[in-house]
């Protein structure tokens, strides 16, 4: 437990140190702090006993924070949250290393806020108390808004305000839902608590109508964060305007808070609601896949393109989650991690050429393979990881998500009856084609083709950067590349570890879905009876 707190507090202490240090020293402190956090978390992962049971570890309640409201500083991980936290901790040092030359003004503040961002995301993943989760979840907005609003592009103000307000509005619904469950728990047990497991146990006993609204409001909060169509419009703007490292963390870790929220709260807490609304969410996810993919196709801004592709990819992730069977859930969780790696890496790649050319417009810039072969190699690798090439990490999640969706109607034998089925998988599968299309178009424009450079003399304004990547930048991308390949070749340990979590999340669903199906069958037969009854007098009249 102390290791968890170490990993969360290291960045915070780092931020405090950065605040009092000099600009020169700040990035080293930040790097050390994030590395320390990663080290603590890695140590924790090594001695983590719960890889194979889907439970939280450690399980004991933390010290009281607000005793009157039963809020406790309880932290602990299950496999999924540990993986996502490891992803965050893994990306943080890389982001900091990647920002060395990108940020030249207000350096101290940048690293300080960045560390706080990382700490709050880690807190959200580590929290075992719903309010603690909410604190982490919501506090991410503050540093992120500042990172965008101060270090962003030309429209940074609009972008940061929109991001803040949009996601904040969403999470209000979520908070309300959590408090509602806590209140119900208080009514039944007489004591306030926000312990997630307890709340889940309470929530699944609520009547179906209550669960419906519970699920809907949790979903609204998380759907904004995911982001699910049509609540996605804040994301492209935020990505477009954010500094590179901000984009990386936004795409890789912050969006995962949304899907993680679904995994942790919406789905297990309100199985009846989830069953009712599953088709709605699935349809929205599919719309997101197709819609965002098509928009990517005509994007000329590289970063916006990747941002929209995140919308599409996370749509697939949500679809896998809402297939409500272990295959889809495994795929979705795996995809959460791997989308973080490949998309984060793509943002880093884009940031690297942006630093050199100060443009992300694929109409102006192109054919960089000639000038930057090393960069181009990485870019191609990560693009294919994002396309979902088998052997790289993206494939596993994509394949399982689609497969889970496909077999969702395969009831009886898998133990997890579903509703979605092949029709959904086919339409979502079009996304695979579109993904190849827009990402290869991106590659074709900026990596391949004759060299095109912007005309203004700022071509190589950045004096300290060579034409191709320098050692530091290679150092940033290499771990990501290794991770992408390694997870594509050896997903097995991770899949095994996720499996108990997936089944645990879905524990209530087989019964609920069965009930839904029975209800629908009954309604159908009643409708049939009604039409038969309606026909009788008609026939009589005809005679």
């Amino acid at each position: 437990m102390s290791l968890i707190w170490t990993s969360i507090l290291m960045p915070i202490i780092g931020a405090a140190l950065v605040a009092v240090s000099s600009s020169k020293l700040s990035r080293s402190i930040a790097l050390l702090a994030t590395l320390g956090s990663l080290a603590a978390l890695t140590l924790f992962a090594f001695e983590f006993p719960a890889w194979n049971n889907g439970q939280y570890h450690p399980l004991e309640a933390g010290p009281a924070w607000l005793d009157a409201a039963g809020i406790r500083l309880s932290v602990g991980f299950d496999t999924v949250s540990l993986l996502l936290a490891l992803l965050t901790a893994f990306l943080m040092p890389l982001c900091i290393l990647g920002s060395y030359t990108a940020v030249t003004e207000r350096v101290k503040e940048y690293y300080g806020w960045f560390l706080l961002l990382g700490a709050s995301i880690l807190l959200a993943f580590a929290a075992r108390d719903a309010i603690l989760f909410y604190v982490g979840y919501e506090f991410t907005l503050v540093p992120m808004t500042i990172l965008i609003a101060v270090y962003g592009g030309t429209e940074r103000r609009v972008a940061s305000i929109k991001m803040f307000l949009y996601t904040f509005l969403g999470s209000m619904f979520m908070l309300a839902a959590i408090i509602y469950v806590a209140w119900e728990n208080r009514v039944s047990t007489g004591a306030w608590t926000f312990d997630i497991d307890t709340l889940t146990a309470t929530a699944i006993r609520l009547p179906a109508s209550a669960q419906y609204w519970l699920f809907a409001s949790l979903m609204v909060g998380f759907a904004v964060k995911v982001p699910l169509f049509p609540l996605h419009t804040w994301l492209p703007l935020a990505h477009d305007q954010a500094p590179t490292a901000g984009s990386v963390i936004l795409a890789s870790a912050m969006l995962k808070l949304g899907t993680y929220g679904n995994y942790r709260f919406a789905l297990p807490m309100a199985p009846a609601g989830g069953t009712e609304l599953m088709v709605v969410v699935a349809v929205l996810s599919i719309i997101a896949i197709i819609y965002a993919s098509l928009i990517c196709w005509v994007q000329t801004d590289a970063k916006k393109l990747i941002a929209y592709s995140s919308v599409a990819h996370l749509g697939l992730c949500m679809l896998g989650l809402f297939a409500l069977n272990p295959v889809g859930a495994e795929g979705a969780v795996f995809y959460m991690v791997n989308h973080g790696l490949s998309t984060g890496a793509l943002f880093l790649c884009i940031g690297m050429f942006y630093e050199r050319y100060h443009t992300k417009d694929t109409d102006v810039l192109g054919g960089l393979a000639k000038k930057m072969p090393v960069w181009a190699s990485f870019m191609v690798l990560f693009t294919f990881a994002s396309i979902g090439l088998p052997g790289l990490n993206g494939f596993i999640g994509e394949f399982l998500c689609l497969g889970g969706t496909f077999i969702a109607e395969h009831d009886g034998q898998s133990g997890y009856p579903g509703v979605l089925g092949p029709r959904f998988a086919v339409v979502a599968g079009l996304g695979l084609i579109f993904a190849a299309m827009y990402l290869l178009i991106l590659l074709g424009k900026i990596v391949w083709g004759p060299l095109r450079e912007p005309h203004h003399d700022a071509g190589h304004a950045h004096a300290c950067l060579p034409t191709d990547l320098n050692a530091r930048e290679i150092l940033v991308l290499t771990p990501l590349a290794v991770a992408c390949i390694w997870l594509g070749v050896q997903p097995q340990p991770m899949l095994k570890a996720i499996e108990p979590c997936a089944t645990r999340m879905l524990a209530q669903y087989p019964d609920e879905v069965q009930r839904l199906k029975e209800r629908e069958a009954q309604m159908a037969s009643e409708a049939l009876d009604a039409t038969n009854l309606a026909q009788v007098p008609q026939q009589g009249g005809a005679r």
Partner: protein
Amino acid sequence: MSSANFPIPQAVVAPEMAWVGLALLLPLVSAVLCTICAAARLRGKWPAVFTVLALAASFVVVLRAYNAYSGPVQVPIFEWMSFAWGDGRFQQFTAPCALYIDSLTLFWMLFVTGLGTLIALYASEYMETEKGAGYARFFFGISIFLFAMSSLVMGDNLVMLYLGWEGVGLASYLLIGFDYQRPSAVAAAKKAFIMNRIGDLGLALGIFMLWANYGTLQYSQLFQAMNAGGQTAVDWDVSLIPFLLMLGAFGKSAQFPLFTWLPDAMEGPTPVSALIHAATMVTAGVYLIARLYPFFALHPDALATVAWIGGGTALLAATIGMAQYDIKRVFAYSTISQLGYMFLGLGVGTTYGACYHTLTHAFFKALLFLTAGAIMHGFAGQLDLRKLSGLRHIPGWRLVSWTMFIGCLWLAAFPYTAAFFSKDAILLQALTSARWDFVFLGWLGLFTAALTAYYTFRVWFRVCCGPVHFEPAADAHHGDAPHGAHDAHGPHGHENAHASKAGHAAEHAFHPHAPKWAISTVLAVLAIGTVAAGFPAYNEAFAHGTNWAQKMIAGSSAAAGAQIVEHASHAAETADIHAAHATVLGMEAHTGLLVVGATASLGGILIAAYLHLFSRASADALRRVLMGNWFTRWLPICMERKWFVDEIYHGLFRLPLWIGSQVLHFGDKHFLDGVLVDGIARIPIAAGKLFRPLYGGALQGYAVSMVAGVALVLAWMTWVWLRGFE
């Protein structure tokens, strides 16, 4: 629906055979070494050395496996994607990294690794102008391709197959776009990958469907489950499985709806065209169908669809091939056409014919492409058959000319060549089928064979015979010709005469360099291989021995072929009996087909000889006649313009989607974000504007709002309080 028991040999689990995995590992190692070469900025031929050695070693591994082969084996290597949430058959997902080795696998692997080694050797010389990063990149691509192809063929389950399937797509993408600074190459690479992805989606859905029905994706378990009878559990009819798999096969093997990427793929370096886009990768579709042949009986029309698509594509591609001027494009269309034959063979039920044709085709088409590559290499990228003539007479080019001649004879299915026998097997099956449509397709195939002979020898007579004359291509830099110019706009008939005059000036300045040892050796070896590929058939036809190819196919899942077709067409007799008693044009089937096939082949060659060797002007005259006539005008135009398939696709799919995307993009920005999101955000802003005067700084504004607040709070409290009294 098909509970018939097909005699599929059961696989034995043999972990001790893990060394076969070297066939996968070695190309991967060489890929890594190539990467290191690139990183270390080595300028030598090291990447080629590594690759050739690795591929040769993996060929040796496959040979050893062939020697050690005694029955199907399953070789587990490590767990890749496997998890279970219960004990039931449908409560697990198992996709290990494992190998499934049966005779079909070995049959494929032998020519894949063998040809891969040879072509890599060829490329070591062909690509020498690119030494440095490009050289390493090229051999990286080749190595990755070989790895992926091996995984595709040797994989124990459909997920491994899918890995290879997409992996060869990646290699193809990287290699077609090898000359990445040429936009046409980049576009071709992109097109290849995306069109393949359409097929891949079909394959993926087919895989899911198989999984949903049989609860496993491993071949041996699948076949067992198949024999035990499928379990229909999804709301889609299980008989859709073959159609979905077919879509994947059509994409990878460039069949009718998805074939347009292959001609464009000729943008890649010629060794790539030879290896990937002629000999090996494009046969993956054939392999897929052969491997999963029992499942194609799940729908009675599945195999008929394969046959129709194959036969139709063969004819379509042949007609286009007749009107192309770029040598590589002619060969590309001939590849599509020949692949059509293979699918025809699969469709009519002779997996042996299809697979054997794959083998022979692999050799002669690789040979043809490599000779084309040699010409391109020597003539600075010139590939227009109107601008090359009489190569046979140029010193140093004899080997090329004659090896090309061998390739052309084989492609034209000249009697008693290997290709003749393989094509024969396919057409015989079709012509003797009990189904009228298969017989029709057989005759269509024969007609196509005549066209094939014509366009094949059109190339050879044009390029290697006649007076010596050549023009180097406009870009003196070695590489691949800018086909784009000819591609879109059909050439004008009378170009020939003028071109030769214009070319004379260049002729003196330009000296073609003849191929050196590596290319020559490879050409020679391949020519021998091409001839030797006929051995199994000769053994059967003349020595009445066993046909090696047939034996190999018969030992695998593809063997179920004949029975399935019979089963599907409800014919009482088996294919063999049927063929034995069948007649072609009143003669005994084998004899009849020999006569008819020889006639078609020789007829095509003779017409080509007349039009393109003896009287070249008459070819132009014929074209003028056709073009001058309103009723026939469409024919040459459509053939030259490739039946407008690309344009139709553009108009039918790409353009509407693109317009749709623009609309969505606009809508996303201005409606969804602009009107809805910002519109909602404007409500509080408007409310703020409404109350703004209250807070202008004047005291009373604050007073009013304070009083209003107090009044409202009091009102609410009073209301609550009063409710308490009532």
